């Protein structure tokens, strides 16, 4: 059987694409570069939307990327069940594209924050978290200036009622409502989170943790069992 193929998207201003591709390869999958200007998903089995400052975060984080030619292909594919993980700027793009509800706004501190963040996995019934145990505590880096998750009361209530909160902060770094660090869509194939699993996959570099590997082994498991 050929390796699972995970697409890694590069927009102008994307920064963590190399990191994401390396993490994908570390778990034995194939990383397929996807270019923002192409109308082509190259037949990948899943898509990773990495962090960065796509289009300089001008106008609003993710607001321009959402209209990239590649997104014309990705949005319907995600609605049809293609597994998609967006981290940081990727999460912001997923919200702008209305694949996930709510929005990410300026941190409550008004400062960019880079730190090793304690988190709790709330949901393992997703394409990207099935390798974790429910309630498992992990450490991943956060690094963002606009990571404060906000949504209407109704949306929040629905997210909680439908078990769509995937990851929660233990010690909220940005003022996110309900300590939300990551959410999923109702189907569970689309997940967005502010922390960076791709920076916590090797002992030698990045955060002092390899907890990020779980996100990549999860998608592999999902694709192999599919």
């Amino acid at each position: 059987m050929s390796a699972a193929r995970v697409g890694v998207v590069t927009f102008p201003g994307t920064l963590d694409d190399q990191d994401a591709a390396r993490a994908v390869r570390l778990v034995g999958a194939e990383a397929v570069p996807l270019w923002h200007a192409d109308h082509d998903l190259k037949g990948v089995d899943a898509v990773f939307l990495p962090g960065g400052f796509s289009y300089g975060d001008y106008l609003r984080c993710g607001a321009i990327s959402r209209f990239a030619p590649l997104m014309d292909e990705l949005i319907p594919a995600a609605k049809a069940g293609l597994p998609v993980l967006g981290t940081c700027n990727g999460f912001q793009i997923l919200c702008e594209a209305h694949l996930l509800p709510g929005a990410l706004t300026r941190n409550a501190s008004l400062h960019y924050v880079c730190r090793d963040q304690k988190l709790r996995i709330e949901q393992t019934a997703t394409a990207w978290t099935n390798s974790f145990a429910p309630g498992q505590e992990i450490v991943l880096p956060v690094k963002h200036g606009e990571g404060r998750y906000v949504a209407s009361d109704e949306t929040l209530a629905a997210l909680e009622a439908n078990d769509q909160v995937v990851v929660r902060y233990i010690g909220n770094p940005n003022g996110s409502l309900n300590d939300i660090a990551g959410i999923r869509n109702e189907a569970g194939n689309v997940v967005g989170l502010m922390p960076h699993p791709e920076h916590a996959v090797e002992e030698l570099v990045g955060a002092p943790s390899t907890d990020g590997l779980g996100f990549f082994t999860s998608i592999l498991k999902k694709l192999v069992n599919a």
Partner: protein
Amino acid sequence: MSERSERPNKPATDNVKRAAETPDELMPFAELGMKQDEYDRVKEILGRRPTGSELAIYSVMWSEHCSYKSSKVHLRQFATKAPKSEALLVGMGENAGVVDIGDGWAATFKIESHNHPSYVEPHQGAATGVGGIVRDIMSMGARPIAVMDSLRFGGADAVDTRRVLPGVVEGISHYGNCLGLPNIGGEVVFDPCYIGNPLVNALCVGLLRKDQIKLATAPGPGNKVVLFGASTGPDGIGGASVLASATFEDESQAKRPAVQVGDPFMEKLLIECCLELYAADVVVGIQDLGAAGVSCATTELAAKGTGGMRVDLNLVPLRDPSLLPEEILMSESQERMMAVVRPDDIPAFMAICEKWDVPATVIGEVTDTGRLVMTWDGEVIVDIPPGTAADEGPVYERPYHEPVGQAALNADTPDRLERPADLRATLLQLLGSPNLASKEWVTSQYDRYVRSNTVLAQPADAGMVRISEVMAGAEPTTRGVALSTDGNGRYAKLDPYAGAQLALAEAYRNVAVTGAKPLAVTNCLNFGSPEDPEVMWQFAEAVRGLADACRTLGVPVTGGNVSFYNQTGATAINPTPVVGVLGVIEDVAKRVPSGFVGDGLRVVLLGDTREEFGGSEWAHVAHHHLGGLPPAANLEAERALATVLVEAARRGLLEGSHDLSDGGLAVALAESCLARGVGATVALPGDAFTCLFSESAGRALVVVRPEAYDEFASLCGRHDVPCYGLGYTGGSALVVEDEFSVPVEELRETHSAALPALFG
């Protein structure tokens, strides 16, 4: 708002024909910072008066900032005294130096100041400081892989520091994070002497294959000159001569428009675009546009190439169509590069730029006339020999003498200061003082993880990055590079010769404690006005000291930057040479982490401790005293220590390490405990106060497995490095036997509370 494409009173453009016809027309050379004799020399070179555009070029190129006219005669020592180094591939004089780091890889690195702009407009000043140094690294053909910042501010509790520091940090954070370069270290120092002259020194390191070095040169008549990146606007006009080289009086508000505004998004596109251009081999020569913008790029490229260039200034893409040619020449708009490209390669070059949404325009071509000729509306407005602007600027032998009062300063030793009765309280006082407290408030605003190659970052002694996935198709390697920047203005004030050596020694040691072998040096020399003979003495002494020390330690200077005029009125900053050292480690897996990494390890002090308190943190914090002499710089001992550290790391003998510097052993022990929350119990090998707080150079703290101690001690013996077993790691407190005990938690609270209390 109405579109303004023409200024109401736009003057007729001065041209060469007109200049020849009106030899006596008064030109505003003094307003552009040029002295009468310098202006006379321009007239002599041209055989007529310069046009307005030519005056613009000469005034910026001959400014202190671009020409090094006051420092040149001293800086030559970095070349004449340079140690023989097989690693040096490109030395001083290019955009940045390049060193061979093995396995076919080369590293290029440089530190540069953006002091004056950062005082006027902290956010943009600091941001564009990062942008500028990153482009220097790009223009060598390298992929930038990390940045560091060495920052100095006025007193931590001063009102203006609350304006300058958050702005500077935010500027670095915004620009660097958006570029996708990990910020892996640096310094944050407070001293009242920097209140009107903060120092923002930015360092960037990049990697390239050693056979792919690019140079700033324009060879080959007929080759095209391409300007690419951002369009040109009115920012930073006169920045090079007015902002970077003039003392602030009190009209700094009026200078606000002279600070450039950065767009890190464009710079990120430029990085990826340039790397693709290099890979496609469509670049013959390249230069970034920094200080003095188009003036500098065209004159330097032409001077180092075939010697001539023709440029049509009307072709320069403008953000503000009302700009005059003089302003286009002086504009310091950011995120611009200039490349020399073979005509056949132009289509491929343009296609890559288009892929990355980077505007690119052919504005001229290389000639063999020996002249740089520029036209505007069909008229020749510049016709000069480019080398006269780029390389043959004025050179000054500024007078200098030892400052009045230097002897008295040196005679006022710390011997008269009362020693503390309570050493525990003194440790906590130092640990909570702004210079020694945790800098997390600053560094947590920087992305240290992006690119996933960061092996060590602040608060480690040196930053370290592995060499992985730098560019497509490169062979994997286990190697990594380590970098540290250090400086101590108080030491340099007491003795600039020794102060510069101590700055080098500390950076060198910081690289060695991580297990990396120090290879090469960059420096940023921050001083007051060179027109003050006392400042000039400090400068001359510092350069002499640094050049001598580089020779002894065997590490050549590869480049750097001089920042003069860091003074307000008659008061100059403490002389502050900041030194960056780059080292290489053969296998990053053998890097030595910072501090106490686990229980039951033997704590070992390396190097000799003498009673040296001149310029120390203790004298500064406890007594607000600055006098006497700084610690002795024993460079032979420093070299032996580094040899031991690097060899021990290679053999896997070291579990953790930490350099001893500001605050001495006491602070090093506390920081080592804080690294992973591991305590230690130690006994002191002499007078407790001296052992704990003296700042003798050439020392480090290491932890080794007990069973590895004998092998390590014999290694130390072989290199004559004194080695004292102080005790063992473990527990939840730092226990100094017969003296005191402090819970690690209390250390942490004291250490981490200071900056948030000051800056929110």
